[in-house]
């Protein structure tokens, strides 16, 4: 498969050193855009594009967090549930005290706390990431429903929406938040000691242990950072929806995150990929969602397609790993 894609490109005399995964994603992206151009040119109106980015801000921020964890060789299934619970905690405090900064701070702290819990269980107690975060996801989901009785929390202070729905230079604040998160994450992963350690740990924990890398601390930190980004996304999602509820962390969100990461070239085997890839992956997932809407295809068929996409990209990734060996 990988060879085929490279060969096709070589046949067209496009010599490239790019990762075949990125190429596949790029081609999909192009195909989606051409399709949209032919079927609904109004998609490309500036307003709509801004809208798309606004839509994908939450997913993209969560995907950034997931990319950090996945590069470190783990997975965090609890991110959407974390986001929902943090949004609920923060909103409750915000409404009780009327203080917007305090409410936002609570969302961030809650996100970090849940992330630390995951990190502690995985790095210190050496539990399996998949199981731990699946459990945290269930726990957070359970608390969310229990605390809210499945009722959305409205009536956050007006000031909250004034701030986070504000437009700066014609663009919604959420896009700026996303861009800041993206730049910070990308810098942290590519240009700091921490980032280099995460890639190394994701590639081989045993080499790192011998090379005096504090493997446990590094792993712990990846989950804390992912938790923090879940807290940030809690703020953005609450502002955009005008409410906080248990449902904002429903199961389809985690599917979207994993899809965004794998089509963005973040390896499920650890040690490979870039946050910016995960972010582009999130944009592609949202655009695909829009196309499905446009074609009036059912939400459930959409889920199915995303599932297939994950399998396709993970198998491509596996082939790539084998090829390198």
């Amino acid at each position: 498969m990988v060879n085929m894609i490279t060969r096709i490109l070589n046949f067209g005399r496009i010599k490239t050193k790019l990762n075949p995964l990125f190429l596949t994603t790029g081609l999909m992206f192009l195909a989606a855009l051409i399709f949209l151009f032919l079927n609904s040119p109004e998609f490309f109106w500036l307003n709509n594009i801004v809208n798309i980015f606004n839509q994908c801000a939450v997913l993209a921020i969560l995907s950034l967090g997931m990319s950090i964890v996945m590069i470190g060789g783990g997975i965090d299934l609890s991110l959407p549930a974390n986001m929902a619970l943090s949004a609920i905690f923060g909103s409750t405090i915000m409404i009780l005290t009327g203080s917007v900064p305090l409410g936002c701070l609570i969302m961030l702290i809650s996100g970090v706390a849940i992330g630390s819990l995951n990190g502690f269980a995985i790095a210190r107690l050496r539990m399996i990431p998949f199981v731990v975060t699946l459990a945290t996801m269930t726990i957070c989901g359970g608390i969310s429903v229990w605390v809210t009785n499945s009722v959305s929390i409205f009536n956050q202070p007006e000031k909250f929406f004034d701030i986070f729905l504000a437009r700066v230079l014609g663009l919604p604040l959420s896009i700026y938040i996303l861009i800041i998160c993206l730049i910070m994450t990308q810098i942290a992963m590519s240009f700091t000691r921490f980032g280099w350690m995460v890639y190394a740990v994701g590639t081989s924990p045993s080499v790192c242990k011998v090379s005096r890398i504090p493997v446990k601390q590094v792993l712990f930190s990846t989950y804390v950072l992912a938790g923090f980004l879940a807290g940030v996304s809690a703020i953005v999602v609450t502002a955009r929806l005008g409410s906080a509820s248990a449902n904002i962390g429903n199961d389809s969100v985690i599917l979207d995150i994993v899809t965004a990461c794998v089509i963005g070239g973040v390896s499920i085997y650890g040690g490979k990929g870039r946050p910016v890839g995960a972010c582009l992956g999130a944009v592609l997932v949202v655009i695909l969602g829009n196309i499905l809407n446009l074609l009036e295809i059912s939400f459930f068929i959409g889920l199915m397609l995303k599932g297939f996409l994950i399998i396709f990209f993970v198998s491509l990734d596996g082939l790539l790993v084998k090829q390198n060996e």
Partner: protein
Amino acid sequence: MQNIKKTYGPITALSNASILLKEGSVVALVGANGAGKSTLMNILGGITAQDDGELLVNDKKVNFNSPVDAARYGIQFVHQELSIFKTMTVAENIFINQFPAQFGIISKQVIESTTKQLLAELGSNLNPHHYVESLSTGDCQMVVIARAMLGNPKILILDEPTSSLSKYEKEKLNLVIGRLKEAGVAIIYITHFISEIFEVCDSVTVMRNGVTISSQAIHETDNSKIIELMLGDVASIEKKRKKERSENIFLKVDKLQNENKVKEASFELNKGEILGIWGLLGSGRTELVRSIIGLDGEPKGTILISRHGKLTPVSTEYLSGITAYVSEDRRGEGVLLPMSVLKNTALPNLKKVSGNLGMIMLNKARNLATRVINSLSIKVSNFDQTVGTLSGGNQQKIVFGKWLETEPDLLILDEPTRGLDISAKGEILKIATDLANNGVSILFISSELEELMKISDRYLIISERYVVAELPGDSTQDTLISALSKNVQGSAA
């Protein structure tokens, strides 16, 4: 098997190997690491094919393309790593290759009664219903042998069957081997424990560098003869180092003990000294060096380091901070194969190549990588090349290089030349001696007596997880070999 040859790429694993098996007799196959035992047995077991030479069974030429082929001629291989399914019962484990089934339904009764019968033949009274996870290693061994027996073997290969057995279990295994002999099975017994050979085997075949150099009946040989054959004659060893060295103790390890990995170890290491750790595989030499830098849990005992002219007790963590450890498992613990030379060399030096806020200074990282490449003359096109694409020797130099940049006080080399060609071996030894000349203290483990003797200033003899003796640097090959065989014998008594 006659004149078997096998090469893997440029490396010759077997150049001329022959082995003769007789019905109802046990042949011991011994040889140092990399002598070619496994390759020879893999050919016999049908796992790989030979390049040249022939296999004869009952004077008829045969060719095996797969383990199934080999099994058809009654050849069964019991590997060192027991292939056991822990969540299954004894009976299911024995029948895992060939469940007897009617219309796809497995008859539990048949497999259980056959299991009972097989185990009884081996003199074991294991319950076929028991789950394997509750069994001892010795009993697991029994299960695997019973599985091999199911194929009615004429030739049974036992690869280091005793490496993890208790004394009592070993005796039980010896009884089983006796029974198999009586039944006319020819057995190849691979082991690192020389004393065992004299308990069960009828003859010994010794391999060295891909050649079977001797086959003798057991009563014609003895302990030290076998070890001598295994290790070979070391052609006039030229000491690579002059004798003048400081006598300042740098490291002192006192009564170190780490569960069953290290029983007891006390030794001293001078500044700028190369201390050769001499022991057979499985003697606990790797565990000893890993224990002092805390890679295998926290050991008991005291570790002292010379600081400001005084010996001060330190933690394993502290020691690890000033130690460079070149692991015997280069691919698993040495280099990050899919990553670039740049990132590999930066790994233990991240603090050195980063500035404020933990930002990596790419310039510094590049300079570091270039320095490593130049100083050890590593053959790479540039520092962005993936380490996985380099030769073994160059990969090992990357490991050395990344550690040298940390300016270690202690260097631990665990089989640093394993799998390298002769010129790379020489270069690695040269680097080590240069370091010692510059005041780095070195613990050096090697299975090759020749290279150990070339650069060691002193020897530590380790056997059965004890540090048993210490020998001066001018010891001859004979003294070293007899030190080992004496202690091997001693522990067997």
